[in-house]
């Protein structure tokens, strides 16, 4: 599969073209605000639920013993939370059906 990618600035460009009644600055600031709101929600332990897109939540990783790869010494690693994304049905179906074409 090819590895084309869209970056945040390309996303802003694409939206600004479609929303030409808004200024570029407004679209840019909006995208940054949306992303920051989402990061902030997760950083505060809050879920994100976007219908048709998916949901983000935190998964807990329990404490475990790790190892210093240089010295081989055992080091206790504390438990932590990691962000997790579960695609929603519409996103799953659309992405999957795109493979068949």
């Amino acid at each position, binding site marked *: 599969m090819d590895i084309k*990618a869209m*970056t945040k600035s390309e996303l802003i460009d694409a939206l600004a073209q479609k929303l030409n009644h808004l200024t570029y600055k407004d679209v840019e600031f909006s995208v940054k605000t949306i992303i920051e*709101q989402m990061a902030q929600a997760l950083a505060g332990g809050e879920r994100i639920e976007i219908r048709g897109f998916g949901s983000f939540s935190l998964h807990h990783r329990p404490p475990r013993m790790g190892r210093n790869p240089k010295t081989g010494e055992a080091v206790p690693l504390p438990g932590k939370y990691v962000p*997790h994304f579960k695609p929603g049905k519409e996103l799953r179906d659309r992405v999957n059906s795109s493979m068949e074409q």
Partner: protein
Amino acid sequence: MALTKAELAEKLFEDLGLNKREAKELVEMFFEEIRDALTKGVQVKLSGFGNFNLRDKRQRPGRNPKTGEEIPITSRRVVTFHPGQKLKARVEAYAGSQQP
């Protein structure tokens, strides 16, 4: 409590002075643009947040958990999300005593 499109739009209304209809439209189109890219086989990289990647999975054997009957899980394309360093660090620092 969960963050939803309605709250994201409300924030754009408050912070940017977009009117409510514009704010709602922008939030809707933000997610639609990402869905559209992924549907076209384009991965999406949002710095400060994370990357949405695509993975093609081969067909593999599966089982109907109710009947035990063997049925193949067909090959499929799935979206995976990889949080960026910055988001991981912010979330890790979440020392909430209550479960999220």
